[in-house]
């Protein structure tokens, strides 16, 4: 692809998304997926691959995933622009918010706003997981792995890394 204007468009879009990513970056995954699919920048398979690789790396996974998209769209400058757009705006917002925090403390409206926003961000996080499951989907076996991961995560205290490894192993052995 390697088009500078595509990199700029991607970074600008990510900057807006990261500024409204209540509930963390997973909540904006469906929107990013719609964007890259509509522009033909990244295939579904690649999108799922970026997600998988960034999830097994330590550190800031979502920043990494957006950087892989940026790398595909515009090479190294694209990767750096995407990373900056993903964490820059929230950092500025956090910094200002922390300064103002004392003024807002204990305001009753704050609790109401939080209770109002929470369900939306939760719905968006689940949507993020659902979209990723669909993007990587190759059949009922994948759906079983996804459901199994949900169940293990909710029912047991297994380290998530083992669940990821098990998924990778099942895939590597050709079960999916």
């Amino acid at each position: 692809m390697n088009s500078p204007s595509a990199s700029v468009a991607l970074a600008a879009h990510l900057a807006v998304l990261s500024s409204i990513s209540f509930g963390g970056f997973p909540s904006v995954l469906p929107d990013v997926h719609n964007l890259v699919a509509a522009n033909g920048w990244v295939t579904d398979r690649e999108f799922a691959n970026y997600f998988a690789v960034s999830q097994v790396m330590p550190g800031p996974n979502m920043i990494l995933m957006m950087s892989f998209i940026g790398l595909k769209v515009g090479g190294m400058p694209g990767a750096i622009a995407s990373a900056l757009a993903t964490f820059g705006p929230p950092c500025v917002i956090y910094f200002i918010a922390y300064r103002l925090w004392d003024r807002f403390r204990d305001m009753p409206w704050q609790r109401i706003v939080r209770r109002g926003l929470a369900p939306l961000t939760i719905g968006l996080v689940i949507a993020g997981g659902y979209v990723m499951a669909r993007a990587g989907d190759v059949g009922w076996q994948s759906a079983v792995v996804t459901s199994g991961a949900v169940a293990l995560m909710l029912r047991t205290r297994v380290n998530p890394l083992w669940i990821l490894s098990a998924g990778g192993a099942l895939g590597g052995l050709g079960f999916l």
Partner: protein
Amino acid sequence: MSETVKARSSNEQVTLGALFIGFLKVSLCGFGGGLVWARRVVVEQQQWMDEQEFAETLTLCQFMPGPNIVGITVCAGSKLRGPIGAISAVAGFIVIPWTVGLSLGGLYLRYAHIAVLQNILGGLSAAAAGLMIATGIRLLMPHRGRRTALLFAALAFTGMVFVKLPLLVVLLGLAPLSIAGAGIESARAR
């Protein structure tokens, strides 16, 4: 206890290097659950914040857009050393892990067309999607008794997944209604 912790952070100047290293550690250890390590480093090991302050900061961060752990990084850095402290802490959290991740991940992705590697990625991706869904379900549990909360979670999900609306539209459209719902709820509870 909290007195001594506070005294420590205001009297001793925490170095920028210590902030960088501290959050580098949070980042590298934070497989799966970064929050666990953020608390360990910030509260237990370095005593940069006490337990109460950490919990309050986390609430603030959850209320704001962006990755929560990055938020804690910014707040801790800013509290200890102002803007330059925030920059050092964020740099520690991001620069090295990002470089390593992009190189190793990029290398892996270059060979992703090889069937075995593609199959492994497919399995990983399916499992990771499941972990994300489970995290959402966990977050939803405290709200399961609130019918309005379940309704708005379902609406947000539907708007994104089936109607494929842009996130901004979903948030701007639903947030006022959802907040109004929460307001009515708390007024009734009183």
